[in-house]
């Protein structure tokens, strides 16, 4: 059947396999299911930028606080290792992270190696079909259980949503040089319900600054 259609002037090459990929062997690949204490989130964005520049921006882990929510500080501790501090309302959790795969312009994979968070992830950078920008796909895994639920409570944001929001911030920063925000705008009295709702809208979580 592969040769059934001979003329396809705009057709793409099928992508190679990667853990975060959405296509495998020409078939749509759904994200992994949550089970055995692991929770997964896969999210992607179409970004108008060069994949090498986006790779470099992601690989510069010490700049992560500029676009990742609640990340207070990242310090590079070795060629492939870094120390991460996540902070909210004065409480902090910390962990070390190690890069497992590093392919410039294409892919970065990492995992935590001790500390308060147990996570692993991969980001891939691919040209979009038709040359409409770079597709950035993130696959992140959390070991849930007590720790993860503690984290969830800590950050006041479901960790899956946090991954989605962080990629959104990354895209905005890459495309525009800033992250859209509304905190500290003027407004009238919110009342009790308005204050509660600000939290459900995610407006209580500080938007990352967009620069260090």
């Amino acid at each position, binding site marked *: 059947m592969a040769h059934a259609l001979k003329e396809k002037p705009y057709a793409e090459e099928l992508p190679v396999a990667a853990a975060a990929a959405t296509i495998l062997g020409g078939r749509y690949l759904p994200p992994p299911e949550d089970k055995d204490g692991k929770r997964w989130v896969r999210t992607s964005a*179409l970004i*108008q930028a060069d994949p090498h520049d986006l790779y470099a921006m992601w690989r510069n882990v010490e700049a992560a606080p500029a676009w990742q929510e609640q990340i207070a500080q990242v310090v590079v501790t070795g060629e492939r290792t870094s120390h991460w501090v996540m902070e909210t309302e004065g409480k902090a959790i910390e962990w070390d992270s190690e890069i497992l795969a590093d392919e410039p312009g294409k892919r970065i994979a990492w995992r935590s190696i001790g500390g308060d968070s147990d996570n692993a992830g991969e980001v891939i950078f691919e040209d979009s079909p038709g040359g*409409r*920008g770079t597709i950035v796909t993130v696959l992140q895994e959390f070991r849930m259980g007590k720790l993860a639920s503690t984290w969830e409570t800590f950050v006041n944001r479901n960790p899956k*949503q946090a991954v*989605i*929001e962080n990629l*959104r911030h990354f*895209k*905005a920063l890459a*495309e*525009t*040089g*800033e*992250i*859209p*925000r*509304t*905190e*500290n*705008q*003027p*407004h*009238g*009295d*919110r*009342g009790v*319900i*308005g204050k509660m*709702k*600000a939290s459900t*809208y*995610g*407006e209580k979580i500080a*938007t990352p600054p*967009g620069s260090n």
Partner: protein
Amino acid sequence: MKAVCWMGKSNVETLTVADPQLLNPHDAIIKITRTAICGSDLHLYDGFIPTMESGDILGHEFMGIIEEVGKEVTNLRRGDRVVIPFTIACGNCLFCKKKIWAACDNSNPNAHLMEAAYGYSGSGLFGYSHMMGGYAGGQAQYARVPFANVGPLKIESDLHDEKVLFLSDIFPTGYMAAENAQIQPGDTVAVWGCGPVGQFAIASAFMLGAARVIAIDRLPERLEMARSLGAITVDYSEEDVSVLSALKDLTAGTGPDACMDAVGLEAHSAQLQGTYDKIKVALLMETDRPSVLRQAIQAVRKGGTLSIPGVYGGLLDKVPFGAAFGKGITMKMGQTNMHTYMKPLLERIEKGQIDPSYIISHRIMLEQAPEMYKVWRDKKENVTKIVIDPWSDVAA
């Protein structure tokens, strides 16, 4: 500063709030010289748009003088006179590059709320709910304008504010509606709703080559304005008038080539369906009252086009999709891609082809806004358009 705040359904107050600050490198702060109340502000006033919260500053039609710019804004300087588009666009995402500005990927900080409701998020809007970004609006003395390097239209001539203010929303919105109607020279076009957007849709339909425009409303002052533009008017509230028959009679039984729904989700209907929709909305079984949409689908000719500048928000009941399919019609709709239209329409104003200020009926100060929202909703005092001078302290 003083600002008009939404404090709950049917409850608007003029309050003293903090002045806006620059928050991002592409922001500007403008001192507002004129702002207006839009028909779509009534959807907020009437509580139809979810995620409005107490204290939100209203207003998305405004213009003024640049007070301060962020460090990345190089095209504007303090003292520049600008009109602000109500949709906020970054200028760099795929959608902005395709000039679908109202679908900007990067201007809504609360995109996840709109994704939950609509699948994907459109651009952020000023003063139009937290789902649409939660940006403070422009019925105030100052406003913060994000992506000021992309949106604001500089006014270099000495045209009066009132002549250019409506470039902020309703003139481009009416114009895009007419463009979406895919008008061919000689077409007959029907427009439901002769409020400000309907007026500009009628004027724009003629500009784009319509031979005949049929305008439908119930308010005498609006119908009069529509006739002054050259439209034939149909008053749907007259007992012996059936809109569908009128449109057949006025198009030799063929139906209008294009229909425009400039009413949207709070349509009134004298028919039984009007009551039906009010009950279903009250019982939370429906969010919008689509009687104009139903009628327009029924009225448009075979293969014709339905353009929808009127705002819809949620779930609609008993929309005759079979009729839409059966006649093979085209439907086009959506928030206005403002940035495409502002400059060419300014040129039309500068050339004297149109003076948009003709729709203004009331000029007020900020303190009068709460009472005027009510007048606007109830269509009292022959109101057609309310413009606010936020620095005036003299009641009109």
